[in-house]
């Protein structure tokens, strides 16, 4: 057994150029497909987690086709409705970052209140509220941090509100990477500071988020809200989820095209492999037959040789994909997936392993490949050795 293994390794090393070429091609294809897997499953997980923690209802003031700031009193109005367990005014808006001509999402939170949005509550829970409120502080998303760092805004940043005054806010920390897909371009600060930065009047909020105790009562509550304030736009959690799902389905189409291209390339490799098997490797088989090797011994030798190549190619492809997504944020593929519609800055992803898909991918690559090698070889072993050598 050991001597056979030794011989198999000798063959593997002697034909390393041929094997290396296949190794790199396969690695590349596996890394492309794995990157897509990692990116899509990471994004879906991140978004599902973040959206799950959103408010059940978002209430906006909507007049003449425009969204306007809503009166703070709408919060109390919502709380008066039976079945509403929590209601909270939110202050948020986009701030134009002049040095890079980018927009940040400025978000105001009432740190003494329980947050309706669970992700925010998690952030607030980790904060030392007294310390945070000692001076004008803010928490920033990792994308914002990168842009701030570029222009040496490491301690503070001076916002220019709509009235062109100056609002100096200190950088307190960076938001959790887990929520990067949604918080990447976010700047979180106290409600008062956010109102100053965004130019929102004191007794107004951007919108009202509402939590419902019993999901079955959601429709009734939505109807009551509509009757209470006729000039409203109501967005439910399901609406937001549907919106993101639509975006991802559309993006999924692009990836399907990528998959097809990869699949065709893989088919080409299989065909090439099959053709190679027809020529020099068949001669190898005949020489082994001539040397007294049994059919099953030859098949195992070839299986081992190619298994080593295909498994190492698969593993290296997956590792490259992991490094690409985890440490380089998925680069071009992520840009292709996220585009500019909802996020305009690159996010850093936390790789999510879907072991079943990965195993499926492993089978998808290894079985046809090994089949393309072994089947013609097996057929050759059943022929006269001399017929092949001629």
């Amino acid at each position, binding site marked *: 057994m*050991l*001597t*056979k293994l*030794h*011989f198999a390794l*000798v*063959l593997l090393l*002697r*034909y390393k150029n041929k094997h290396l070429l296949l190794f790199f091609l396969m690695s590349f294809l596996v890394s492309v497909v794995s990157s897509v897997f990692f990116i899509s499953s990471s994004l879906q997980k991140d978004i599902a987690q973040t959206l799950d923690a959103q408010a059940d209802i978002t209430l906006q003031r909507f007049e003449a086709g425009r969204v306007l700031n809503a009166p703070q009193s709408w919060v109390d109005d919502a709380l008066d409705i039976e079945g509403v367990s929590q209601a909270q005014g939110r202050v948020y808006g986009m701030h134009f970052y002049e040095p890079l001509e980018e927009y940040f999402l400025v978000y105001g939170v009432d740190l003494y209140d329980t947050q309706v949005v669970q992700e925010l509550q998690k952030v607030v829970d980790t904060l030392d509220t007294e310390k945070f409120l000692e001076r004008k502080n803010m928490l920033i998303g990792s994308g914002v941090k990168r842009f701030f760092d570029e222009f040496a805004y490491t301690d503070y940043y001076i916002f220019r509100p709509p009235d062109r005054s100056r609002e100096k806010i200190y950088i307190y920390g960076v938001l959790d990477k887990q929520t990067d897909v949604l918080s990447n371009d976010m700047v979180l600060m106290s409600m008062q500071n956010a109102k100053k930065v965004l130019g929102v009047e004191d007794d107004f909020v951007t919108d009202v988020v509402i939590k419902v105790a019993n999901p079955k009562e959601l429709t009734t509550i939505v109807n009551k809200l509509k009757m209470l304030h006729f000039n409203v736009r109501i967005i439910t959690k399901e609406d937001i989820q549907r919106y993101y799902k639509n975006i991802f389905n559309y993006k999924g189409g692009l990836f399907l095209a990528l998959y097809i291209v990869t699949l065709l390339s893989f088919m080409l490799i299989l065909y090439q492999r099959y053709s190679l098997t027809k020529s020099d490797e068949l001669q*190898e088989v*005949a*020489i*082994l*037959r*001539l*040397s*007294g*090797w*049994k*059919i099953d*011994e030859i098949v195992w030798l070839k299986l081992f040789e190619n298994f080593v190549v295909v498994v190492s190619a698969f593993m290296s492809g997956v590792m490259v994909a992991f490094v690409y997504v985890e440490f380089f944020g998925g680069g071009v593929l992520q840009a292709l997936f996220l585009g500019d519609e909802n996020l305009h800055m690159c996010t850093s992803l936390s790789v999510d392993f879907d072991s079943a898909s990965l195993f499926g991918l492993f089978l998808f690559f290894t079985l046809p490949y090994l089949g393309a090698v072994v089947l013609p070889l097996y057929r050759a072993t059943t022929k*006269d*050795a*001399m*017929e092949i*050598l001629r």
Partner: protein
Amino acid sequence: MIECRAVTKIYKGKEIVKELNLCVEEGAFVVIEGESGGGKSTLLNMLALLVQPTSGEILIEGENIALLSDYHSSQYRKNFVGYLSQEYYLFENLSVYENLLAPLVVQDLSFGEINKRIEQKLQLAHIANKRDAKVAHLSGGEKQRVVLAKALLNNPKLLLCDEPTANLDDINTQHFIALVEQLQKEGSTLIVVTHDKRLKHLESVSRYYKMHNGMLQPRS
């Protein structure tokens, strides 16, 4: 004893070997000559089980080798027969040593035994100095000697040689002749296809045949 009974081989519609009958006793030294395409190599290939006869029987010690299973035909090639082919059926990208490794790794031998046997046969074939050279870099004569060393690896009871001296110089031809005569003395059966007069006229040759149009004709 090796016996061919009405052996016929048809390849691509052409009868290469016709109703051939041959009987070779154990320890005999048989020389066959004949024109190219006469079926000599095909006969050796059939005896080495590399080609199946279209009809007829090849009996070795009473057993029809054409009917052997894959396991038994591999055992036959591995343990019984040594084949010195006209073409160099070698792995061109492997070294001489690695080429000789191929037939031995399927025999239950330790690394020590394998190395010992390879060294021994390389010495016998006068090619020990090229042990680590890549086969692709060897001359025709050197490759011929590698094939000889490979054929001798399993200490064959039946040695089949197809034009064994075609690429050898005089000195190496003399070495080869001395070697086959030694093997015959040790009890091996030799069937040699050749045009080389030096081989045909050896005293140790027990039978001499001419092959013409797929048929064997005994010669004195």
